[in-house]
């Protein structure tokens, strides 16, 4: 969906045309769901919160103003607010101990399936240890594969800020993974073979 089509759909949805909102929903629901799964490491909760995000979007649509940023950026902002609200309600965020508790398969003769599973768990937990902004940039830039400028638009920052942020995020993530004993080089070699 290009920007013009999106803007027309948003204008129609603001006028109360539900088909237009349905098209916006179809275009963005998976991106919001993926973002929430990556942030929460829990599909069930992510599923619920995805619904909440779009309900809030319906409620806030009348006040929505197009500032030149993609509609998805607005949805990400709502999703982030839902996340914060969720953490506040559950009073639970992943801790350093979550990473330390995960047994790390450092020897490559482990079963590959288990290796992948474990590595993914460690990686996800390590990502969840980053700051909010760092998590967002890692998810959008490296997991979702958006370009730097797109991430800047989605997060409402300038490109230089994202450059600095991705540097800090990668350094922090790499340090956490190293602390767990995960041999990234060996893991990558094992995965590509």
């Amino acid at each position, binding site marked *: 969906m290009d920007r013009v*089509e999106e803007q027309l759909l948003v204008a129609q949805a603001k006028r109360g045309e539900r088909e237009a*909102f349905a098209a916006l929903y179809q275009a963005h629901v998976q991106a919001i*769901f993926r973002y929430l799964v990556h942030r929460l490491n829990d599909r069930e909760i992510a599923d619920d919160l995805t619904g909440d995000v779009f*309900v809030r979007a319906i409620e806030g649509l009348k006040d929505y103003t197009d500032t030149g940023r993609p509609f998805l950026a607005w949805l990400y902002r709502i999703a982030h607010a839902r996340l914060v609200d969720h953490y506040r309600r559950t009073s639970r965020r992943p801790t350093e101990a979550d990473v330390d508790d995960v047994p790390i398969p450092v020897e490559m003769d482990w079963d590959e399936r288990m290796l992948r599973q474990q590595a993914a768990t460690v990686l996800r937990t390590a990502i969840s240890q980053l700051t909010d902004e760092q998590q967002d940039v890692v998810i959008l830039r490296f997991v979702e594969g958006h370009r*730097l400028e797109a991430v800047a638009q989605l997060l409402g920052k300038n490109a230089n800020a994202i450059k600095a942020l991705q540097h800090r995020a990668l350094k922090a993530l790499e340090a956490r993974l190293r602390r767990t004993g995960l041999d990234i080089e060996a893991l990558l070699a094992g995965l590509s073979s």
Partner: protein
Amino acid sequence: MNTPAPTLSFDDTLNLSLQALLHERESLETCLEKYPQYAAELKPLLQTVLLTQRLKKPVMSAARVDALQERLMQAFPDAPVQHETETPTLPVRRPVMIFAAWMGRSAAIVALILLATFGAGGGTVAASANSVPGETLYTIKRAWEDLILLFTSLIGRMDDMHLHLAHVRWEELQTLSQREQPIPDSAWQSFMQTFKAAYQQADENAQNDLIQVLADVEVAVNQAALPPTYRADLIAIVDQTRRETTDTLLTVQTPAATQEAETTQDAAAIEAVESTEIPTSSPVPTEPLMIVSTVTELVVTSAPPTRTPTPSRTPTPSLTPSSTSTPLTPLPSPPATYTRLPLSIPSQVIVLPTQTQDSSSLVPNKPDVPLPPDPGSGEEDPPLVPPMGTFDPIIRPTMRAVYATQTALANGAEQSATPDSP
């Protein structure tokens, strides 16, 4: 770029390496060879990226997506329904906001010239500032604009001026609409020409602003404020705008592209053992939404036979279906936007009275209920571009529904109130 600039910061180097690694598919080794001075620092970070990139992307099941959509549609507030006696008018854009937005990026000198002249007692010119097409002073207003345009071309800010004039033309149309005056052909032509000129010279922000104008015009189209001839022209402009803007605006990954990327990455995902859900099977079509919709309506809704095309109108190729003088097709097909979506909305399914029904039996002697124009009534021909409230052939389905419902109710109420009715 094999030799990095000596002043390249690590942030920039990292970003260039990420660009090459993620989007240009270069190998890790190639990236490191480009920046030997940073290779040791870059390597672990790029490896971390490669690992992160292989995280599996979760997908919400199609069934769940559909179920959630159904729930959302129930929560979606109903569209505001226009009362049958309400005159459909063009949406009002707030002039102050338009001016402020324009001022945000325009050459202040141009604004000052206009403001000083119009606002500082420029005599007849000042008096003509609020004139609309059809008024005597309007000629002066346009002549003054031509003069300002000429002056603006000398200082190189034509883009600002064209953008301003596009808004002025649009406001004139709104003024005519609010006064319930017919909009002359020349006014539409001026709007179209000015809009094209403005768009061609606009930067991204201004294009966004113009797109908002287009969205408003699209409302006017749905409210039957736009004559069919110009409706076709508008479609062409919207289409062109969409294509051009797609080329110039930032490319954000589309859902379809994302799904394609997922397919590739999932194959190598490090979570291959996790349960896999079926991806949604309803990618959003990438074709322009409104254009398909309005073209469809153009084909099925033709002008009333009593309308006589004037020679002054220049037919457009895309207008062919609607310029025929076939009798009014009673039921326009639903816009294509509805058919594109997987969820049908039952509340939109409406049975309308057709031309074969005896409309006089539906609404006997109800002067306060506006009826569609009767092709065979022999009454005076409506004006070529009638006032907003009387241009019925392209009336919106919701208004038709209101009309049908209320006339039926009125008919029932009258029958029950009349003692000798059968």
